[in-house]
C-alpha cells in the first residue's frame, strides 16, 4: 500500500538553515547538509529545501548544498524558492534535486509549468501554492513568500496547473503557517479531491494529531513540517509510529 509521506522542510538562506535546528548530535545544527543527513537517518521520506533568499548568490549556495546532500542522502530531494526559468530548473536537477517547486514564477507565467514538464517530466515539477482564505469563503493565491496577493483562486489555479503538467502540489495555508494550530483541513481536502496528483499539506503543524487529521480528514498524500522536527518536539520515527497506530500507512 502506498505510504503517506513525512517531509521535513529546511528553509535556507546564505547557506544556513534559518534559525537552525537543535539536533544535539550534530556538530553544526545550522548546516543544511548535516540536517539533511540527520533527517535521512530518522527515515524522512523526502526532503524539501526552500531557498528563502533566492538571490543569485543564494542560488549558488543552494546548488552546492543539493550537490553535497545528493552524495549522502538517497531519498527524493525537492528545491524551491527563486526558481524562475527553465535554466534554473535544469541547474537544480543537474545538481542532484529530483523535483523543483515553483510558485511566483508560475503565477507570472504559467507556461513555465508546461515547459518544465515537457523538458524534465511532470514528476519533477511541483506547484507550490501559498493560499489564504478570502471573504467569499474561497482561497486566494499569494506569491513572494506570502507578501503579494494575486487575483487567482487557489482551487482553480491548482486544477489549471495540473492540466499544464504539474506533478504534485505543495499546498501551504498562509492562515495556519507558523500558528502551530493544525493544518488547514478544509483547504487541503478540497484541493486534494479536485486534482489527481498528490497534495503535500503544509503550514500549521503543532502536534502529531495535526498530521493525522490532515492525512485522514484532509485527504493529504504527504505532510510537510519544519519547526516541530527541527526543535526536537518530535522525531520522525515518533510521528510515524503515532500515525501507524492510527492506521495511516507509513514507511517504517
Amino acid at each position, binding site marked *: *500500500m*502506498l*505510504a*503517506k*509521506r513525512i517531509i521535513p522542510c529546511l528553509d535556507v538562506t546564505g547557506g544556513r538553515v534559518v534559525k537552525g535546528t537543535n539536533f544535539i548530535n550534530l556538530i553544526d545544527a545550522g548546516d543544511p547538509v548535516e540536517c539533511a543527513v540527520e533527517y*535521512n537517518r530518522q*527515515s524522512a*521520506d523526502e526532503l524539501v529545501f526552500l531557498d528563502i533568499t533566492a538571490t543569485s548568490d543564494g542560488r549558488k549556495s543552494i546548488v552546492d548544498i543539493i550537490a553535497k546532500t*545528493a*552524495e*549522502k542522502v*538517497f*531519498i*527524493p530531494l525537492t528545491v524551491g524558492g527563486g526558481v524562475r526559468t527553465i535554466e534554473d530548473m535544469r541547474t537544480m*536537477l*543537474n545538481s*542532484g534535486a*529530483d523535483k523543483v517547486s515553483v510558485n511566483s514564477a508560475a503565477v507570472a507565467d504559467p507556461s513555465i509549468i508546461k515547459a518544465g514538464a515537457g523538458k*524534465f*517530466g*511532470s*514528476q519533477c515539477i511541483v506547484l507550490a501554492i501559498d493560499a489564504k482564505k478570502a471573504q467569499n469563503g474561497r482561497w486566494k493565491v499569494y506569491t513572494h513568500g506570502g507578501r503579494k496577493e494575486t487575483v487567482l483562486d487557489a482551487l482553480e489555479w491548482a486544477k489549471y496547473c495540473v492540466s499544464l503538467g504539474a*506533478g*504534485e502540489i505543495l499546498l501551504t495555508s498562509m492562515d495556519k503557517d507558523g500558528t502551530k494550530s493544525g493544518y488547514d483541513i478544509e483547504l487541503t481536502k478540497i484541493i486534494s479531491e479536485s486534482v*489527481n*496528483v*498528490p497534495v503535500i499539506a503544509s503550514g500549521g503543524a503543532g502536534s502529531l494529531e495535526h498530521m493525522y487529521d490532515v492525512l485522514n480528514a484532509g485527504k493529504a*498524500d*504527504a505532510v510537510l513540517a519544519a519547526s516541530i522536527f527541527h526543535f526536537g518536539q518530535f522525531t520522525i520515527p515518533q510521528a510515524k509510529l503515532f500515525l501507524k497506530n492510527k492506521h495511516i500507512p507509513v*514507511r517504517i
Partner: protein
Amino acid sequence: MIALIDYGMGNLSSVRKAFIAAGARNIEIVSSPNEIYRAEAIVLPGVGNFGDGAKNLNFLGLSDSIRNFISSGKPFLGICLGMQLLMETSEEAPGIKGLGIINGKTIKFDNSLNLKVPQIGWNSVSKINKHSCFNGLKDNEYFYFVHSYYVVPENTSYIAGLTEYGIKFCSCICKENITATQFHPEKSQDAGIQIIKNFINSI
C-alpha cells in the same frame, strides 16, 4: 566497468551517486555500442515517455547491443522506464516497439480504479521469488515509486516482486541475469542501496 546508459531520458547523476555509495568502483556514463560491449554490467535507467526512450535507443544504435549484451549472460539492471523498455509494447506509445527482451506489455493504471496517477511515493514490495536481488532485504520493504505505467510480463514466473496500488502489479522482474525494478533504488534509501549492492555482487 559498469556502464550506465545515457540515452537522453533523464538525469543519471543520482543513479551514479547511488552506485558509488553502494561500492561500485568503476561506473561510467556511456552512450555508444562499443562502450556497452566493453562493460561487465549495464544499467538502463530512465524517466519519461516509452516512445521517446525506444526511439532514442534505436537512434543511438544501442538496442541491438543491449540485446546482445543480455544474451551474453552478463548482468543487466533496468530501472523504471529501463524496465518498461524490456517489454515488446506500451500503451504509452502505440505502434512503437520496445526492446522485446521479455514477452509482455506495459500498461497504464486504469482510470476506473480512481487512483492518483502517477503513483508517487513509497510503496511496499512483496517478494515472490528468492532471487539474489533481494538478498538482505525483508519482505514488504518500502521503495520509492514515480510512474503511471507498469509491466505485464507474459511469463509470470519472471515476476520477483508485487506491489499494490489499486491492483497488484509487477514491481520487480528477475530472470537469470536480468534484474528490473519499477521503483527507483537510487531514491529508496538503505533498501535501494542494498538492491544496488546485490546487483554489483552479481558481477
